């Protein structure tokens, strides 16, 4: 009896402690926008300090993407704040381990903090889960790197900075048809990953239309991403001279390693998930020599914007930035451009800012790191040109 009583006490104590923590944080959150509202300037022009939230896998196996997005966004915010214009940003990054449930938690956590605009999440599955919440709550969401069409479809307030999966699959197939005609193609993709499967599906259907010859298709899952000898032997014996890898860079690094060990030297062709392979710890960049990939950003571009960004990123984080960092950087500038077009002030709530920005997004044009003259359709997809690069001497160069 006593034990059960104890249980009851524990349960009610838990309830009380939750209630206590609930009360205190929500009051903190509600007071924050009021405080920043004091800095708002004249009506009609956007001004004040807006609260930006960033969500991405800052830990876990996809951490390189989340870290890049958080760092890229931070650099953009620092630049904007240093310029001292009317619009200032306050940035907070939350970790979601690329998991839908955790990502929704992170999103709610950011709302408690007083987030007004969301730049994130980074990965596709998480973004779909958060996009539904953001749509219901009317919070403006601009994902730097979630590439599935499911993220934006049917949600007027969700926008993308990166290409969509169909765009990447079609883009890769078109590039191959144009520049590598007559090659025998093998595809190795991860069939338990939305990103990889999505690109694979559109690539295969576009390849069929363009008359490309796919001689081998190999699959793997998260649990079998450590050994690719079966798939590589299959591709080799099918006579493939081009291997299309619509996958993230970790399994790709294993594939490159194993292909090298077995003396198989086809042209490897990746998409934006391949980006990051050169900075991966413990990977010999010499193995990636000759790998082609479709990316909107190359850290070796000589234009001033890219060089400034690369040097700022290196000073802050020590690495060469990848495409994800560039996407996030552009996302922050896109948010700034849209805010300037709306005349929002930072004392407005997230829903009001959202409505104004939804109307403004299709009207703005952003010259960013990942494309000149980026524009958005009202469905949320970005329009910019993909670019194929080849890895030479440990750097991206135009083929």
């Amino acid at each position, binding site marked *: *009896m*006593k*034990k*059960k009583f*104890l*249980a*009851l006490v524990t*349960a*009610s104590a*838990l*309830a009380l402690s*939750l*209630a206590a*923590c*609930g*009360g205190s*944080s*929500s009051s903190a*959150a509600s007071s924050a926008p009021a405080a920043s509202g004091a800095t708002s300037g004249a009506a009609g022009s956007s001004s004040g300090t807006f609260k930006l939230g960033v969500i991405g896998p*800052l*830990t876990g196996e996809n951490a390189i993407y989340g870290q890049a997005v958080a760092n890229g966004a931070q650099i953009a915010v620092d630049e904007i704040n240093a310029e001292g214009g009317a619009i200032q940003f306050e940035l907070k990054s939350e*970790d979601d381990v690329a*998991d*839908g*449930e*955790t990502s*929704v*938690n*992170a*999103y*709610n*956590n950011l*709302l*408690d903090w007083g987030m007004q605009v969301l730049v994130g999440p980074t990965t596709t*599955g*998480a973004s*779909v*889960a958060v996009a*539904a*919440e953001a749509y*219901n709550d009317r919070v403006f969401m601009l994902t730097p790197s979630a590439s*599935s069409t*499911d993220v934006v*479809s*049917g949600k007027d307030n969700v926008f993308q900075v990166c290409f969509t999966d169909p765009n990447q699959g079609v883009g890769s197939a078109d590039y191959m048809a144009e520049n590598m005609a007559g090659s025998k193609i093998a595809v190795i993709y991860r*069939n*338990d*990953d*939305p990103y*990889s*499967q*999505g690109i694979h*599906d559109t690539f*295969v*259907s576009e390849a069929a239309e363009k008359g490309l010859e796919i001689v081998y*298709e190999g*699959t793997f*899952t*998260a*649990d079998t991403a450590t050994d690719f000898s079966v798939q590589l032997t299959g591709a080799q014996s099918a006579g493939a001279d081009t291997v299309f890898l619509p996958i993230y860079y970790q399994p790709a690094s294993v594939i490159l390693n194993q292909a090298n060990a077995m003396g198989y030297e086809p042209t490897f062709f990746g998409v934006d998930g391949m980006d990051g392979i050169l900075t991966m710890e413990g990977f010999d960049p010499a193995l990636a020599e000759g790998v082609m990939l479709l990316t909107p950003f190359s850290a070796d571009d000589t234009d001033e914007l890219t060089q400034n960004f690369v040097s700022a990123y290196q000073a802050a984080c020590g690495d060469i930035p990848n495409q994800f960092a560039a996407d996030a950087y552009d996302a922050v500038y896109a948010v700034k451009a849209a805010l300037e077009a709306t005349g929002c002030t930072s004392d407005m709530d997230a829903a009001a800012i959202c409505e104004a920005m939804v109307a403004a997004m299709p009207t703005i044009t952003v010259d960013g790191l990942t494309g000149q003259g980026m524009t958005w359709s009202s469905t949320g997809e970005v329009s910019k040109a993909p670019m194929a690069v080849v890895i030479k001497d440990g750097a991206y160069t135009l083929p």
Partner: protein
Amino acid sequence: MKKMKKSTRTAFLTYLSVILMFAVMYALDSAGMLTRSLSGQLVPICCYMSMAVSLNLTVGILGELSLGHAGFMSVGAFSGVIASMYMKDIIPSVPLRLALTMIVGAALAAVAGVIVGAPVLRLRGDYLAIVTLAFGEIIKDLVNCLLVGYDSKGLHIAMNLTGNMSINDLGLEAGGVAIIKGAQGATSTLTIASFTTGFILVMVTLFVVFNLVNSRAGRAIMALRDNAIAAESVGINITKYKMMAFVTSAALAGAAGALYGVNFSSLQATKFNFNTSILILVFVVLGGLGNLWGSMVAAAALTILPEALRQFSDYRMLVYAIVLILVMLATNNPTLKNMLGRLKPSKKQEKEAAGNV
């Protein structure tokens, strides 16, 4: 009070505390006094509580180790998502649709439970652990091959076993909706779950488990856990009672999975991996084998903890692990146990209570 059986008293006190918790949290949530972060976790917490209680039926009360409980959750989640999306236009009432969704999830998970249990529960030893472990992995791969959509002609289902099919091969009419797209999972689910449904789920789960445990069948189940040979010698059909407990546990996990599935608009099969199975097992072990309210408290605490630790940013899962180890050490610390023991009138009564849930 004295006349009431101890088991009944435990059950009623557990119901009472769950109702109390629900009332407090519901009131706070309606009054807007909860943080978004916490109110967003209410439904997942209910699902995890229900998962923990149902796993406790297998692990604590039946005494068999199951390492693939997330597999049943997965079956329930994806069948629930299909059911709820399919019935979207047929049944406009959300509560009714939710109830049917959970029933479909429970039914299909029960079928999976029968398939797994029928051969394995006839054996003695750790076979169930191995087979459920494999089951969880198989389900993950099966869902990755699953393509489901619906249009005016009804449901279209295809298994993408060769890896060459995509959602376009279902032949959906214009206006058809893709529900599950292989590895991309369910990506356009309407989120209809609510905290009240979660509460009802937990209550139903508790009610089923308490009634099973306190029935004749429940005593038979516990008898064969304690000594299978002795139980068999008095005429208890071991396989039948093992199946009863295991399939009930699977069905309840399916219902919890169905609610979880319709709480998020995006769901991938990889969510229900080995780690999730182990996480639920951790709830059960931390809460105490055979201790239902303990499982619930552990499930709630361990779901909230990672979010509460967000201030540690990148180190939060490290802190989480440390907290977990400290709690495990503390609950097994003899000094602490003595201190708690002194609060109780007699050790004997405690032992009785511990063996009686």
